């Protein structure tokens, strides 16, 4: 059984089909990249997979459970328990320190544990910056805090929306390395990106166009060599 399965999922805004009968399977421990031009439906797909929005039609099975008809409260519980979110703009709370930002996710999940939050920061190489405020951190460091916050509750899926979109090349490399490490540890990763260099290190890439899966690419054995295999 796949960890995540989308069956004929559509999202319609008025006359606009942001997603048009998309089907997709993501296996546990897989690293999937979602690419596509602006307006192709990447963010809509991320919102639906991340339980931030509801599909107009279709089924979304997360760990075998259909979440497509859940109410807002149930979707909040799913986000809290099963999904770790990473944003392009980081979205750290400006008046909380790095460790407190990580603890914020613990607070709404269960109980805040500063020691555990510090360990999460250590995993992303920021133990020495734990007491710094977001304004005192570089973009790359803020994104790593964001990764630590996404990891802290041991989610089943890490969902990253343009995680390197606001980073320079050096920091982009650090974040990609971090993803590689997480993948090796068995974390399921879905990364929405414009950046082919970020997509090419993923196990598999799907490319969206006009709300549909245009084609899919598999990076065999993580060699960095992309093989074009399907076309719709």
């Amino acid at each position: 059984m796949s960890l995540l399965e989308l069956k004929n999922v559509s999202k319609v805004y008025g006359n606009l089909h942001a997603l048009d009968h998309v089907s997709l399977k993501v296996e546990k421990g897989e690293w999937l990249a979602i690419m596509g031009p602006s307006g192709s439906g990447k963010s809509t797909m991320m919102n639906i997979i991340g339980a931030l929005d509801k599909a107009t039609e279709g089924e979304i099975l997360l760990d075998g459970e259909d979440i497509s008809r859940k109410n807002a409260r149930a979707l909040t519980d799913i986000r809290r328990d099963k999904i770790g979110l990473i944003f392009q703009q980081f979205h750290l709370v400006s008046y909380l320190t790095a460790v407190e930002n990580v603890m914020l996710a613990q607070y709404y999940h269960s109980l805040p544990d500063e020691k555990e939050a510090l360990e999460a920061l250590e995993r992303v190489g920021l133990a020495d910056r734990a007491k710094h405020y977001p304004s005192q951190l570089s973009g790359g460091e803020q994104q790593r805090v964001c990764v630590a916050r996404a990891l802290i509750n041991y989610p089943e899926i890490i969902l990253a929306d343009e995680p390197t979109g606001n980073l320079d090349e050096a920091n982009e490399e650090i974040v990609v390395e971090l993803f590689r490490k997480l993948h090796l540890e068995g974390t399921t990763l879905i990364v929405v990106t414009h950046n082919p260099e970020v997509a090419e290190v993923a196990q598999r890439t799907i490319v969206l166009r006009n709300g549909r899966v245009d084609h899919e690419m598999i990076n065999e054995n993580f060699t960095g060599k992309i093989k074009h295999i399907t076309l719709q």
Partner: protein
Amino acid sequence: MFVRMIAKAFLRQWKKMLMIAFTIALGSSLATAMLSVMMDVEDKMNQELKAYGANITVVPKSTSVISDLYDVGDENISGNYLKEDELGKIKTIFWAFNIVDYTPFISTQVSLDSGNTATLTGTWFNHHMDLPTGEALDAGIASLRSWWTVDGEWLDEQSDGSSECAMVGSSLAKKEGLSAGDMIHVTGSKEEKNLKVVGVFDSGGEEDDLIYVTVDTAQALGGLEGKIDSIEVSALTTPDNELAQKAARDPSSLSVSQYETWYCTAYVSSICYQIEEVVTDSVASAVRQVADSEGQILNKTELLMILITILSMVGAALGICNLVTASVMERSQEIGLMKAIGAHNPAITGLVLTEVLCTALIGGVIGFYAGIGFAQIIGHSVFSASIQIRPMVVPVVAVLVGLVTLIGSIPAIRMLLNLRPTEVLHGR
């Protein structure tokens, strides 16, 4: 974590929180001042309104009946009198504390050397009484006729030779060519006396044709020892309501509980009733113009203060509404993030409301103490007395501040509840 978030949010938004606290402080200070003055204003206003004279007159029952039948005014044509030795009993009724002043009147006709006759009235000027309660009271027309202008001085009852002194009305003084310091020879039905005019008063009314002397002097001249025509009483009263009006018509029509309520409330009718109980064969009646005016002024003053309180609270609510809404808008990404990582609406609402309520508490306490100060300023500038802060003001202001804060936060909370993470986290 919750406390840490509240504390840090305070530090981060201290300017906005200061504005909210200031808004609340302004509203609660006005509410405290107005409520304090309103709860204390009845006594203060009553004291002020005493300057307009007595609000109760007491006459013998027969005089009252004749007066009602023939509309002959207050002249004693019945030949019946009240007893002077019962005057002290007026300060023994249930509402004795509310009787702030009273004075008896006894009138007789006297002849003057010019051949003219005049009405000479005996009364108290500053009559000293030691009451059974241990209190002392100086009562008389010196305070009941505070609007008189006197050329010379008021007759001082407590000085030696007061029974040989008189105060003459300005019309009579003009007619007889009298001024302060002159002597006047008066001949009554029983005695004649030489009186020293200590003052010429101008009342602006019929009293300007009278001669005022002490009660003993008038009684001696007219042979009316121990007799009194009428009594004027100035009492602190509660504005009439339906119960008081019903009782004024017929106290026997009241039920037992209504009677107790009426008797134990300082309505003018209940005080009149109690005076009639202690002064034999008397009829006490309210001077309606004065009593009604007092009631109306009190009611209107209280209404004005309630309106100011409501307006200040509405103003505070609008201010809070703007400030909290602006705060939530400013923090929409932070709130969206909290929702995205699993915070339910009640948790975020609780966080925002706790911040606002803590700020309101600080502002409310500061405003309360400022309001006490405002109340004292109002008390001293308007009533020349301190305003007593009633304990009831504290919970009332606390509830008002709480309600205003919650009501003012409603639009912001609605915005917060409707905020969708997808709309703020992707910058759309």
